[in-house]
């Protein structure tokens, strides 16, 4: 593990008008690591991820990516975005493009690869996720789990420094969720750095030893789910993770 984190978030504050969504978040993500962020709906999980690639502008605080403060003026936002792979809850595949084109579009238009090269690289990624056989299908012809694999292939094709997942299993049934969990574990074994936001306790348990609990704009706790469910001082944390007690 490197001495300095790949992503370093310090005292991140994000406001939408009067509404303070993130209120001093600290988080480190090291290369090769996977971290899971959980928290009640509306606590700012998506906002946190979107601050990383400046889809949302932080109000104050610091985000360092590979040692560079990416909130600084003059940051090359497009280059930043290209090095952060994004996977969405609703997959967000381009519906007018085939599976192959979904994965190769960025390579052609952002990396400037010629079509043949881009498609070769895209096919490699699809193959890695066992989706190469579906290369000529359109998103509407895929199941949810297949769409999510394509979305992950699309993110990986750009060789990002980190892949962030925003509730990757919320739109999937339990079987497909387990598949995604297995996939994330495999990517972790292959050394992919990942940050995953989720509501899905099973997914969280499957892919990480510890979770970060975000509440009211802050990191309220960071520990294993078992300990958060049983031993945490705050009853709301116990309720969120525990099966007993009043569910948050």
């Amino acid at each position, binding site marked *: 593990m490197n001495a300095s984190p790949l992503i370093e978030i310090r005292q991140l504050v994000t406001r939408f008008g009067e509404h303070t969504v993130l209120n001093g978040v600290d988080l480190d993500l090291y290369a090769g690591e996977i971290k899971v962020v959980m928290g009640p709906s509306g606590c700012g999980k998506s906002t946190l991820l979107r601050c990383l690639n400046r889809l949302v502008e932080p109000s104050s605080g610091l985000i360092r990516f590979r040692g560079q403060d990416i909130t600084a003026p003059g940051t090359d936002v497009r280059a930043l975005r290209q090095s952060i792979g994004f996977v969405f809850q*609703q997959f967000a595949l381009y519906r007018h493009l085939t599976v192959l084109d979904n994965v190769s579009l960025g390579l052609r238009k952002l990396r400037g690869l010629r079509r043949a090269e881009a498609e070769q690289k895209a096919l490699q990624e699809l193959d890695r996720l066992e989706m190469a056989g579906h290369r000529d299908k359109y998103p509407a012809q895929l199941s949810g789990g297949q769409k999510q694999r394509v979305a992950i292939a699309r993110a990986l094709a750009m060789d990002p420094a980190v892949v962030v997942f925003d509730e990757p299993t919320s739109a999937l049934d339990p079987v497909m969720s387990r598949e995604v969990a297995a996939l994330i574990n495999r990517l972790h074994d292959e050394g992919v750095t990942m940050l995953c936001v989720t509501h899905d306790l099973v997914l969280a348990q499957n892919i990480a030893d510890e979770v970060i609990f975000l509440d009211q704009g802050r990191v309220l706790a960071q520990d294993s789910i078992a300990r958060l469910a049983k031993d945490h001082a705050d009853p709301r944390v116990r309720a969120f993770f525990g099966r007993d007690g009043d569910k948050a």
Partner: protein
Amino acid sequence: MSFLDILRQLAHGVGYTLLVTLACSVTGLLSGLLIAGGRQLGGAASTLLLDVYTYVFRGVPVLVLLFVVYFGLPGLGLTAAPLLAMMLSLGLIAGAYLAEVFRGALASVDAGEILAARASGMTRGQIFRFIELPQMLRFAVPGMVNEFTTVLKYSPFAYTVGLPEVTKEAMSLVATTHRGIEIYLAVGLVYFAIFRLLMVFIRWLERRYEIPGMRPA
């Protein structure tokens, strides 16, 4: 003179009717696309300007604008050939309507896909070109068919600036033969045939570019 003779005589005008319809549809398509693109990519000022433009052009009667261009502009030392005058009136008005069609079609592009494209690092222009435009064109097919049909139905105005299209041929025929009912019935048939042909062409285009799960709403 048989009904077939009448049709044969009208056929002389069909070329002009097709030419006017095609030229004005293309003008409308291009100006509509420019307006839609400008509205997406431009700033607040250009959006306001384009909105005013479409508002005005949708409100002006085709014939009035045609006369302004064809009979009015020469007063300012600008003359427009008949076809050009049609394109600058009927064509631009169709463009203003098409811009509205495109605006609606753009609104149906999934916000999640646009967010994904932004997150991948595409510029505003790339997102429009590679994500929004291709989807917009497919969502807009019914509205475009409507507008092209309207252009066809307004094409007879071309005779007022001296283009001998189908209706003009019919009027000359009626003047010499006084068989108005048959002749105008034949005119109706000719327009219907052109309309069907247009539809066949559009259905072919639709099928050619069909994408599963992407039928216009």
